[in-house]
């Protein structure tokens, strides 16, 4: 029935909006990650 099909799409859209919201929240926490590549100091070639 039409109500069923419509409800499915609304449910999926709402769920995906939640996923998008969680992604935005997660972006705020990426500031805790290092800017420099891991092991960069050790990996850089020593100047001759």
């Amino acid at each position, binding site marked *: 029935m039409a109500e069923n099909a419509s409800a499915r799409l609304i449910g999926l859209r709402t*769920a995906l909006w939640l996923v998008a919201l969680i992604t935005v929240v997660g972006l705020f926490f990426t500031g805790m990650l290092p800017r420099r590549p891991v092991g960069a100091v050790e990996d850089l070639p020593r100047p001759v």
Partner: protein
Amino acid sequence: MLRDSRTTVAGNPMTDGAGWTGSQAATADAASGSTRVLVILAAGQFLMTLDTSVMNVSIRSVANDLGTTVTGIQTAITLYTLVMAAFMITGGKIGALIGRRRAFAIGLVVYGSGSLVTALSPNLTVLIIGWSGLEGLGAALIMPAIVALVAGNFPKERRSSAYGLIAAAGAIAVAAGPLVGGAVTTFASWRWVFAGEVVIVLIILVSVRGIKDTPTEASPSFDTLGALLSIFGLSLTVYGVLRSGVWGWVRPKPNGPSLLGVSPVVWLVIGGLLVIGALLLWEARLEEAGRSPMVRLSMFKSMQMTGGLVTFFFQFLIQSGIFFTIPLFLSVVLELSALQTGLRLLPLSLTLLLAALAVPKLAPRASPRLVVRLGMLSMLAGTLVLVGGLDPGANAGIVLIPMALVGLGIGALASQLGAVTVSALPDSMSAEVGGLQNTFTNFGASLGTALVGAVLIGSLTTSFITGVTHNPSVPAEVTAQATVTMESGDPSSPIPI
């Protein structure tokens, strides 16, 4: 790696038939042995991760076969990750006490038994015992052991690439899971997925002897109270979220239980958080007293490690929500078969692998923060494009670009987060970091499936009831019956998704 090892060893006058020196041959043997170990451990990681994605495209088939509903299978999937998350720290500690190789082997036996039970399960209860219970407990022993065994079997200079390959095995499993599940379900039965797992477990078990064990703790002591608090606290919190779709978040659903006028979900989550708070207090006290806690809270002073763990949590929260939602759209709304559903997810698998392998190769000096941010923006863009494309006339083609974008994003994160987290602290603490890492990822995955699933079912229920209530052609008694059935959220009652 083999060639590198041979060419860097100092010369030795004693050569073998191939012209190598004795120490060169020994080094080559060691490299060959460690490659074999890496393959074994990567196979273990592949298997554990495969289980979290392999059944997402087959939810409807499993539900029909066992006479249950999507909600019932969602419960089994969430409980699997919940059991792993709840027992991961304890599993890591057990490995430190009895030996990581032994824990790895015992975990494989438990996991294989669970796979066998799942393959033969006649109903949802047995499925949950085998899949969620036994497999979850086995994985909780295996996954922290893998992290520690990598550290114990590889010299420091080879560990980064070894951890990277282990992470790649997990990424491949996430990518391959839907296709494997879809193909096996379409051409045979979902049960063969679990039967196949038993065979893989047996092959890994035969090879376990080749793994060098790491020393156990000098003065073994088990923080029993800490273990109980972590298991209890995590279980209560996630179980509360899991039941929200059935019981309601705050307002109890019709015919659903209530406690002091509100849904039991509120009390479960509050109770879980209180228990986790008590765990933190207890662990801090043990550490101050110089005793061996389940989790050393001082590790969280490292911003790099904490940032890595939090981002891992969000990565798995997001990807489990996507891996739950998209297959439902393809299989339920568009009525695609399990195999067709798996094939439609292939762009995600391919771009995930591409990004995970290409980023470290092409941009080894890239900022981890920048790569992760770009990855998350790619995931966000993919999700929004998909939301925009969902309409009644949509076809399966609308998932192509969103899947590719989400895959690129997950791959970018996979290329950075493992190295960021493990390298934040000295190697001697890698086992504990690994245990925490697996706890955060599994907790994120568990919460993601539960949260997104609960919101999807809740939104669907509300929309459906509103639709039939305002439709004059639907008889009043049918509307009333549909309302009671939908709002009850009983997994045993048929729901229209």
